């Protein structure tokens, strides 16, 4: 069906392929060359609003890797089964992590969610639907419920 014909055409194609491979190799080298011990872009440190003990419900390294999984499972349980425990609920996260000044988790590079997501270049989809503002009343009761959720049940 498709005939590539002449040797000259084949030679052009070969050259293109070689150039493309070289370019790819170059990009890959650059990627590896850059980082390592000293990052040029500092990992964001986001101020946290909560006065409720200043400890997250899980430890930081775990959260950095797995918070999306926690949120995803929890949201399915909440939406489909009406389970509204607060330990892993988004509203509770926001209540603690909202910035002291703005009361939000997005809106600037220092904001909790947006700061890390901008650094990691991962698009945030949650706040098209969820409010990024802390519900003031949640803060106090959330700490209490979170404690009893963790302890009891």
């Amino acid at each position: 069906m498709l005939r590539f014909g002449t040797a000259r055409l084949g030679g052009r194609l070969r050259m293109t392929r070689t150039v493309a491979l070289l370019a790819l190799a170059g990009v890959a080298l650059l990627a590896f060359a850059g980082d390592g011990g000293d990052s040029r872009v500092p990992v964001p440190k986001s101020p946290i609003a909560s006065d409720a003990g200043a400890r997250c419900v899980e430890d930081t390294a775990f959260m950095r890797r797995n918070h999306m999984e926690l949120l995803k499972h929890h949201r399915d349980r909440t939406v489909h089964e009406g389970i509204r425990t607060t330990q892993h609920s988004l509203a509770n996260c926001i209540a603690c992590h909202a910035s002291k000044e703005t009361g939000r988790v997005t809106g600037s590079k220092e904001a909790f969610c947006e700061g890390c997501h901008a650094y990691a270049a991962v698009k945030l989809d949650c706040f098209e639907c969820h409010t990024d503002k802390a519900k003031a009343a949640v803060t106090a009761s959330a700490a209490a419920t979170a404690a009893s959720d963790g302890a009891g049940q």
Partner: protein
Amino acid sequence: MSVDRGRRQILAWGAAMAGVTIAPGITLFDLAHGRPPAEGVSNNVRWGMLVDVNACASDCDACVVACDKENGLSGAKTATSAQWIRKIELTAPSGQTRSLPMMCQHCADPPCVDVCPTGASFKRADGIVLVDRHTCIGCRYCMMACPYKARSFVHEPLTDQKTDVPRGKGCVESCTLCVHRIDRDQIPACVEACAATGHKALLFGNLNDPSSEISRRIAAVATVQVRADLRLDTGVRYQGL
């Protein structure tokens, strides 16, 4: 006879006054006794609503205002505004006019659930029909399928949503029976508001519990489902229609 009636009336009024005064924060009706937060819903409960059309006033839209406020809707009535509940004025062929609220009927056999390609439109075990906005792709097929035109589509980016009611551009939504309140053993905002006005045209409760007020009323008076010919077994019933 008349003495008894007078006494009964005083008692009834007294109870009503007390109820109305302390209504806002307290459940008026016998709900499924506080489900613990970590336990999922089950079909032991089936939430339903009874609308007394005779008690519904034409010039009152307290239910609509309450719904807008509770769920963070704009309250605007443009062609692209979300309206989860609306007042419909009916005129019978005889000329008689009535007024009633129309919202998602929370059918047991919902057409919107049938047609949703991703299963975002679903029925919770306790009978509430909801849209899982994490899965909704915004195809609007459910809006075509709903016999009550209960669904709205969000046509523009939103901000300042209520914490308990996430909603956003590109997804379809409808009355949730205030599921976030029900899960906290409260009643829907519209029911509460209607009671506060004194009309008390809306009654909310567990259809699966024969001793609940709504079940007793449905057993006692004639009620209809709107578009009963479609046999959807709606959770919202109308009395006096």
